[in-house]
C-alpha cells in the first residue's frame, strides 16, 4: 500500500471516528465559542470594540489548538490502549504516515472550529470582515495550519513515551494561548516571555493573521513573520523526524512499545 494511500485512508477513517466522538463537538464548537464569548464580553465591556477580532478569531484559534494538542497527544496512546500499536510498528508502512493521516483529520476539525467562530463573527460583527486584507489573511491562515501540523508531529511521538500524556496535554493547553497571542498581542506579555513566544512558530503566523485582520499597532512585516513562522515549522518537522526515528528504533530494540 503506498504511503499516500495510507495517509488518505487513515485521514478518512480517523475523521469518521472523531466525528462520532462526542467530545470532539465540545472541542470544535463549544470551547471556542465560550472563549470567543468571554472575549467579546470583555472587549466590549472595556470599550475596546475595535479589537473584537481578537475574540472572534481568537476563539477559533483556541479550538484549533485544543483539537490539535489533545488529538496529537492521544493518537499513539489510543493505539496502545487498543492493543494495535505493536501491529502498526510491525508493518512495513512508517508509523509517521499513519500519524500524518490522523493529524490531518484533526486539522480538518480544527479548521471547522475556526470557520465556525468566523461565521458567528460574520453574522454579528460584519464590520470586522470589511477591514480584512484577504490575501495576507489567507496566507497567514494557511501557514498557521502548517505550523500546528508540524507541532502535532512533534507532540505525537513525544507523548508516546509517557503514560501521562493526558496530564501533559492539559498542562500545555493554556500556555499556547499566551505564547501564540491567540486572544491578545504577545507584545503585552513580560519581556522575558517574548523569546519563548518567538520559539513558538504559530506566534509569528498568528501575528500576521491579526495584522491582516486590521489588528496591528505597527506596519505589518508579513515577509519576516511568515519567514520566521516557516523556519519554526521546518525546525519542528526536523525534530519530529528525529523523534519518530528514535521511537521506532527504541521500540524495536526493547520490544516494549505497548508499555510506556
Amino acid at each position, binding site marked *: 500500500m503506498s504511503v499516500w494511500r495510507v495517509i488518505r485512508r487513515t485521514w478518512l477513517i480517523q475523521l469518521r471516528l472523531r466525528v462520532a466522538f*462526542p*467530545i470532539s463537538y*465540545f472541542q470544535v464548537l*463549544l*470551547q471556542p465559542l*465560550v472563549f470567543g*464569548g*468571554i*472575549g467579546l*464580553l*470583555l*472587549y466590549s*465591556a*472595556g*470599550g*475596546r470594540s475595535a*479589537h473584537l477580532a*481578537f*475574540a472572534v478569531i481568537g476563539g477559533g484559534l483556541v479550538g484549533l489548538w485544543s483539537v490539535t494538542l489533545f488529538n496529537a497527544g492521544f493518537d499513539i496512546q489510543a493505539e496502545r490502549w487498543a492493543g494495535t500499536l505493536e501491529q502498526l510498528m510491525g508493518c512495513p508502512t512508517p508509523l509517521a504516515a499513519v500519524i500524518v493521516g490522523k493529524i490531518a483529520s484533526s486539522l480538518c476539525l480544527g479548521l471547522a472550529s475556526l470557520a465556525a467562530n468566523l461565521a458567528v463573527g460574520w453574522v454579528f460583527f460584519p464590520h470586522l470582515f470589511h477591514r480584512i486584507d484577504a490575501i495576507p489573511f489567507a496566507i497567514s491562515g494557511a501557514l498557521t495550519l502548517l505550523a500546528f501540523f508540524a507541532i502535532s508531529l512533534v507532540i505525537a511521538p513525544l507523548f508516546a513515551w*509517557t*503514560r*501521562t500524556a*493526558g*496530564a*501533559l496535554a*492539559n*498542562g*500545555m*493547553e*493554556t*500556555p499556547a*494561548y*499566551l505564547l501564540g497571542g491567540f*486572544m*491578545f*498581542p504577545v507584545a*503585552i*506579555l513580560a519581556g522575558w516571555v517574548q523569546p519563548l513566544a518567538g520559539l513558538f512558530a504559530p506566534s509569528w503566523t498568528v501575528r500576521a493573521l491579526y495584522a491582516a485582520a486590521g489588528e496591528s499597532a505597527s506596519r505589518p512585516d508579513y515577509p519576516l513573520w511568515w519567514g520566521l513562522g516557516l523556519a519554526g515549522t521546518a525546525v519542528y518537522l526536523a525534530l519530529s523526524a528525529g523523534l519518530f526515528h528514535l521511537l521506532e528504533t527504541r521500540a524495536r530494540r526493547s520490544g516494549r512499545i505497548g508499555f510506556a
Partner: protein
Amino acid sequence: MTGLRLFAHGCLYQYRALFNWATPLGYASSKLLVPVFQVVFFVQLGVFATGGGDPTYFAIGNAMQVTALNGIFGVVMTVGNERQFGTLPLLLASPASRLATFLGRSAFHVVDGIISVVIAFAVAQLLFGLRLAHADLPLLAASVVAVALSTCGIGLLLGSCSLVSRDILLVANLVYFLFLVVAGVNFPVTRLPGALQVVSRGLPMSRGIAAARLAVAGAPASRALPLLGQELLVGAAYAAAGYLLFRVLEGWARRGGLQEAF
C-alpha cells in the same frame, strides 16, 4: 470497619489511586500548570481587553474558579473510574456505608482544591501584585473553603451520572467552562442575559467568588457571610442530589445486574 475509618481510608486511597499512575511530571502538570496558566491567561486577557482594568478582579475570579478542576474533574473521575476500571461491582457488593464511601470520594479534593487556589493566589500576587492590604484574610479563607465544598457537591452529582453515562467527561468539561461564563469569574453576573443569570443562581461558585471579592476589598463580614451560607446550601443540595442518584442507580444496577453496563 467503622464509618469514620472507611471515610478516612476512602479519602486517602481514592486520591492516591487517581494520581498514583502519574509521574511527578504528570501530577505537576495537572496541579501547577493548569491553574497557574489559567490565571495568567485570563488576567492578561482581562487587563488588555478592558484597556488596563484592575488585574485583581480577574485574578480573584480565576483563582477561585480553579477549585472546579478538583471539584468537577477530580470528583467525577474518582466516582466514574470505579466503573471504568472494573471495581464498581466490588464496591457495590461490599457492606460498607454508602454515605461514607460516597463522601470519601470528594473530601480530599476539597483540600486539594484549596491548595490549588492558594497556588493561584500566590501566582497572582507575584505576577500581578494582587492587592491584599485591606483584605479580611479569614473571610477570604472561608470563601475559598465554601467554594471548594460547593464545587465538590456538583462534582458528586456528575460523578453519580457517570455511572450511567459514558460521556460524562464531556458534561464535566461543559460545566467547567459554564462556570467561566456564568459564575462571575471574569465579569459580573449582572452583565449576563437574564436566562444565564438564572443559570448562575442555580449553580455553585458565583456567590463564593462575590464573597471573596468582598473579603479582598475589606468589606464587612456581614455582607459576605450570607453569600457564603447560600454557597454552602447550593453545594449541599447538589451533593444530596448526587447521593440520592447514587443510591437509585445502585438499586437499579443490582436489580438488573448492570453494574458495568454502559
